[in-house]
């Protein structure tokens, strides 16, 4: 009888462990709800065929966001960031491969299903008003998991400071709140980057593609890429979005694999509680069976 019960309890322990780990063996990607842009979503549309690389947007961005000039690579002479960094939330890059050239604007993509906000322990990074991903310093411990998670390499860190902040494009949410546009969109002399409602921008991008198919790559980047982004891109015909430095993510949102597994394991916190109960029961049973003073000695 005792042997039977012990065997039973051990079996339960194994079953409990299997129940907890089972989902890891069979991840079901469809289990996670598909995210869509919020109804009030605002975004930007960058058309690489219009950009002349004047970098006015970079200066306007720094002024609007109180960022210093990044003069590290120019001996203190002029602003010359080599990539997005803690002094640069928005950058114009040049792609060049023989005759094929294009400018490229990089900043936060304001993903529909951002990896960074899934990473963030206490919601310092969140999709806030208009679906814009902003950073709240009070909630940030500076762990930098957002930087590990972001497929676009956007969240940057003030490495030189003893009390560092995470720096990223917040679509000038402080300006939007005052009824203004993001600085980069306001100053662009060619309207290469424009600001507006996500749905309007999507229609605009599709319209441009339909009106002049020979001019563009036959795709609007950001509609479905990595689950979608609120910043949309059009590229010159013959220059792929990967040429411009954007990753080829497919349609699956980046957080899907991790979130599906983790939520299956922790659904309703049932598995941990069940495991605890099983472990507790087995240890208690073993303790009683071993007799003596009944004390479990570690």
């Amino acid at each position: 009888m005792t042997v039977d019960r012990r065997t039973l309890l051990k079996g339960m322990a194994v079953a409990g462990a299997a129940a907890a780990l089972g989902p890891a063996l069979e991840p079901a990607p469809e289990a996670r709800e598909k995210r869509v842009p919020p109804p009030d979503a605002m975004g930007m549309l960058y058309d690489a065929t219009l950009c002349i690389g004047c970098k006015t947007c970079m200066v306007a961005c720094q002024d609007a966001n109180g960022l210093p000039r990044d003069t590290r690579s120019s001996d203190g002479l002029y602003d010359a960031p080599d990539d997005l960094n803690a002094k640069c939330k928005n950058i114009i890059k040049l792609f060049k491969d023989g005759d094929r050239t294009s400018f490229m604007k990089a900043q936060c993509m304001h993903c529909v299903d951002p990896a960074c906000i899934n990473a963030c322990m206490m919601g310092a990074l969140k999709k806030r008003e208009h679906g814009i991903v902003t950073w709240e310093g009070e909630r940030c411990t500076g762990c930098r998991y957002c930087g590990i998670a972001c497929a676009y390499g956007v969240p940057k860190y003030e490495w030189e400071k003893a009390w560092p902040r995470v720096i990223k494009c917040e679509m000038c949410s402080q300006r939007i709140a005052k009824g203004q546009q993001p600085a980069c969109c306001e100053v662009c002399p060619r309207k290469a980057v424009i600001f507006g409602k996500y749905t309007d921008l999507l229609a605009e991008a599709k319209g441009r593609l339909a009106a002049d198919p020979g001019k563009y790559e036959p795709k609007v980047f950001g509609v479905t890429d990595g689950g979608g982004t609120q910043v949309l891109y059009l590229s010159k015909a013959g220059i792929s979005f990967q040429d411009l430095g954007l990753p080829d993510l497919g349609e699956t949102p980046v957080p899907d694999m991790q979130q599906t597994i983790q939520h299956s394991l922790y659904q309703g916190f049932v598995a941990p509680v069940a495991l605890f109960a099983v472990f507790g029961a087995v240890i208690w049973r073993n303790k009683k069976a071993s007799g003596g003073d009944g004390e479990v000695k570690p």
Partner: protein
Amino acid sequence: MSAHTKPQPLGGPLWTPAFKILAAIFGVSVLLIIWRFVAGLGATTGLSDGYPWGIWIAFDVVTGTALGCGGYAMAFLVYIFNKGDYHPLMRPAVLTSALGYTMAALAINIDVGRTPYIYKIPVFVSWWNLNSVLLEVALCVMAYVAILWLELSPAFFETWEEEGSHPALKKIAGVLHPIVKKLMVPILAVGVLLPSMHQTSLGALMLLAGQKVHGLWQTPFAPLLFLISCVAMGYGVVAMESTLATSLFRRPRETKLLARMAVVPAWIVVVYLVIRTGDIIVHGRLGLAFQLNIQAFMFWVEMVLFTGGAAMLFSPKFRETAKGQFQASMAVVLAGTVYRMDTYLVAYNPGKNWAYFPAVPELLITVGVVALEIMAYLYIVKRYPILGGAAVAPKVRGAE
């Protein structure tokens, strides 16, 4: 339990030459830690926007907690599967776990940029992002550090209850010892539950990095592989600690006991290898292992260490001698270490133009944290009843 296996303090002098060297190393790291908090992470580490995580996360935290899984692995054997004969290995295992996890927690405090806000993680419950795997790791590790010291606390209480100890300590032990005794079953159950949770989560963390992690490591099986390998590493560390302690402190060897236990991690590694290789083959990623790059090379280093370690543990020639046990266990522990370092650093590719190698202060801080851990181990085994059995020589000598 028979009297001769009752744990005893080793006694002996604390300030041995070895201890002084460790103290000096730790002293240097304290100065560097101060510099890190004054000058920031950029000045003291090799970290960058491309590689926001370095050895403090990959080694001190992710590998350090896995090395601290001895208590977890032994708890399964002793308390769940009721193999009481392994009980003498329990206290040293819990001590190395408690120290390993405490040092990991210390490393996190050095690594995060806004350390004073760490208190908010357990306190500001309404801010919790329940989608964050890192939040789960943080809360779980904090709780487990407390649980491990509670599991170990009877060793301290027993000493404090003795005649001649400080009255205040006597009082503390008198109040807390009975409470801890009564609560030991739930404490032990939580102690088995928590590592099952966060060691899995440590495997899940890098899933969020998606394509940035090399195909030989980026797999939905990573959480399971991390859990399985941490248990194997736990047994490995227990065997290594036991052989080292018996040699250094001239204690009776536990070779027979360890030989019997060796098949447990050996089979765990077999399961690990089946899942790891099976997953790569089924998903058609085997070709990645035959490319000429550092990732493929490191993959084979892992494979050789895991396979070699398991083969050695199965082989009576290695398993039944103290030296062989040590070598076999070290192979498994190294294998799990390399697997973790690879997942977090070697397999991680943020794109061209980025490179990471730890800076000298960064490395020295890690070395200093390990030195502190060894010092704490030496202090505790000499003053408190951790190691079982009487000394072989009548005089107990300290570690040289």
